[in-house]
């Protein structure tokens, strides 16, 4: 359920963030009671779903009591008062080594303080419950992890959550928490949002501070929230906006709150479906999901992102090279301690000629200019999030347009050409039948997260996009 489906009772668990924050602010329920219920739900479900790698009950309860005490003292409650949340374990959490899904990082010194976005969520009253499972060093689309075990999909635990923010997807989709933070370099928020049936926001590159998060590919790394509804996404996103001098890639922009814009609808917006690359290389139901969204919005236009397949190729080269450069010392010292699937890509990445990477970055400029020109005549572009539904855990290949291809790299076929140039995307969950969910990317021009969220909200209001917690 989410805040749009009032329960008629005091929320304790499985409620949306907005509903919880309202109840805590009004005194209908204490932040402590909400936190205790969420901790109990995590404890009950985590053995099966493996979403949390670190659970912090003492910290969470202390934070909840502080929220309750502030309210009792007459201080205004924050917009996320008492809302439990959790973060992919590449976010710094004070007192824990930031493992980023790896074995090697467990030997790091504990983080001295929380990541910037964790601090901002807590400043808005949210309660951190702990760290979440992820693919090693975020070089992953599956949510599998050889060190911690796979994140499991709440809608079918024999299937992948998607990754690399796999625990983020599992924790929100199962109702453990209403909000989780993830990272998205090539699709790592949008893929688990699709496989787990969630709303996910990948903001514009440079919008949210990455300070205090373990990096992967500096050129493409984004952070953002996953939730079961658009209002919750907007609440979290607004709480996290604002300049941070500690992130050198962040754009110097003042906060542009989206919550006041959320109900403005889609009338007058020019919405088109991405053609070409985005209509091939996927299962028919992925395109059926896009069709359903387009029909609901009355979108009949089709638009071609030029050279999208080449954009994906360029993103692939840059990712392998920058990732390898980041991990070079670890590859030298402890190559045997990596997940083999990560290590062998990084070793290859370390051998990439610099000129290839430079050309890929120059192509990125060309592609960016062409895509930005498209937005002169279009406000929103729709595309599938993934080429398939959640695959079975351990699945290694995928059938695409009659060809059997390796699964791992191809899950990102539709997300990579979008994050490559940092466009903001709200991924929305769509059920086209009784099977597992699918995702559709609602893509907006740079800095127009508000448009993506407004359209997602329309789809939610129409019942075309929705999340549901499995019983």
């Amino acid at each position, binding site marked *: 359920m989410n805040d749009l489906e009032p329960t008629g009772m005091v929320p304790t668990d499985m409620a949306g963030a907005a509903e919880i924050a309202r109840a805590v602010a009004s005194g209908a329920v204490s932040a402590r009671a909400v936190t205790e219920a969420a901790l109990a739900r995590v404890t009950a479900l985590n053995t099966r779903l493996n979403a949390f790698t670190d659970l912090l009950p003492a910290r969470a309860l202390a934070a909840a009591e502080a929220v309750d005490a502030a309210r009792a003292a007459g201080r205004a409650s924050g917009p996320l008062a008492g809302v439990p949340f959790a973060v992919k374990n590449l976010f710094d959490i004070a007192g824990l080594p930031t493992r980023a899904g790896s074995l090697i990082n467990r030997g790091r010194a504990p983080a001295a303080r929380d990541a910037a976005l964790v601090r901002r969520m807590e400043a808005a009253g949210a309660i951190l419950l702990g760290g979440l499972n992820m693919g090693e060093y975020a070089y992953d689309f599956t949510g599998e992890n050889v060190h911690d075990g796979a994140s499991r999909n709440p809608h079918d635990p024999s299937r992948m959550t998607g990754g690399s923010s796999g625990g983020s997807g599992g924790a929100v989709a199962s109702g453990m928490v209403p909000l989780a933070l993830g990272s998205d370099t090539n699709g790592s928020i949008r893929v688990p949002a699709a496989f787990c049936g969630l709303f996910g926001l990948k903001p*514009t*590159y*440079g919008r949210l501070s990455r300070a205090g998060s373990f990096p992967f590919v500096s*050129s493409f790394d984004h952070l953002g929230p996953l939730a079961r509804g658009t209002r919750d996404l907007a609440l979290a996103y607004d709480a996290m906006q604002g300049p941070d001098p500690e992130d050198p*890639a962040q*754009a110097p*922009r003042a906060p542009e709150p989206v919550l006041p814009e959320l109900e403005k609808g889609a009338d007058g917006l020019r919405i088109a479906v991405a053609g070409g690359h985005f209509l091939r290389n996927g299962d028919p139901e992925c395109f059926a999901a896009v069709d359903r969204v387009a029909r609901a919005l009355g979108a009949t236009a089709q638009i071609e992102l030029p*050279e999208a*397949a*080449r954009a*994906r*190729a*360029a993103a*692939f*080269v840059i990712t*392998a090279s920058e990732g390898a450069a980041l991990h*070079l010392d670890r*590859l*030298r010292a402890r*190559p*045997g301690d990596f997940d*083999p699937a990560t*290590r*062998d*890509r990084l*070793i*290859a*990445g*370390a*051998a*990439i000629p610099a000129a*290839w990477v*430079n*050309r*890929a*970055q*120059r*192509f*990125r*400029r*060309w592609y*960016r200019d062409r895509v930005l020109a498209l937005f002169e005549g279009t406000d929103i572009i729709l595309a599938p999030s993934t080429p398939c539904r959640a695959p079975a855990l351990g699945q290694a290949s995928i059938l695409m347009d009659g060809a059997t291809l390796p699964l791992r*790299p191809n899950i990102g076929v539709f997300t990579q050409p979008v994050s490559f140039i*940092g466009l903001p995307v709200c991924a929305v969950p769509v059920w086209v039948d009784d099977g597992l969910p699918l995702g559709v990317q609602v893509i907006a021009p*740079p*800095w127009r997260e508000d448009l993506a969220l407004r359209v997602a909200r329309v789809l939610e209001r129409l019942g075309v996009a929705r999340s549901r917690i499995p019983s």
Partner: protein
Amino acid sequence: MPADLPPLPDDAAMLAYLDAAAVLQGIPVDPAWRGDVLANMRAVAGAARAVLSFPLEDEAEPAPVFAA
């Protein structure tokens, strides 16, 4: 237009390049890993060819951050 790209090297030549690169970078590569490293390098090289074969003006400089 870009000059014609050379054909991708065969496995022996690609492995020789990877072995030399690993030595240069100081990465100890277990012989059991070489096959998967080679497969990954072939995937990267294929992607790179798609990029390298695309004509770009000399003035096309990288623009990693959006301007408002």
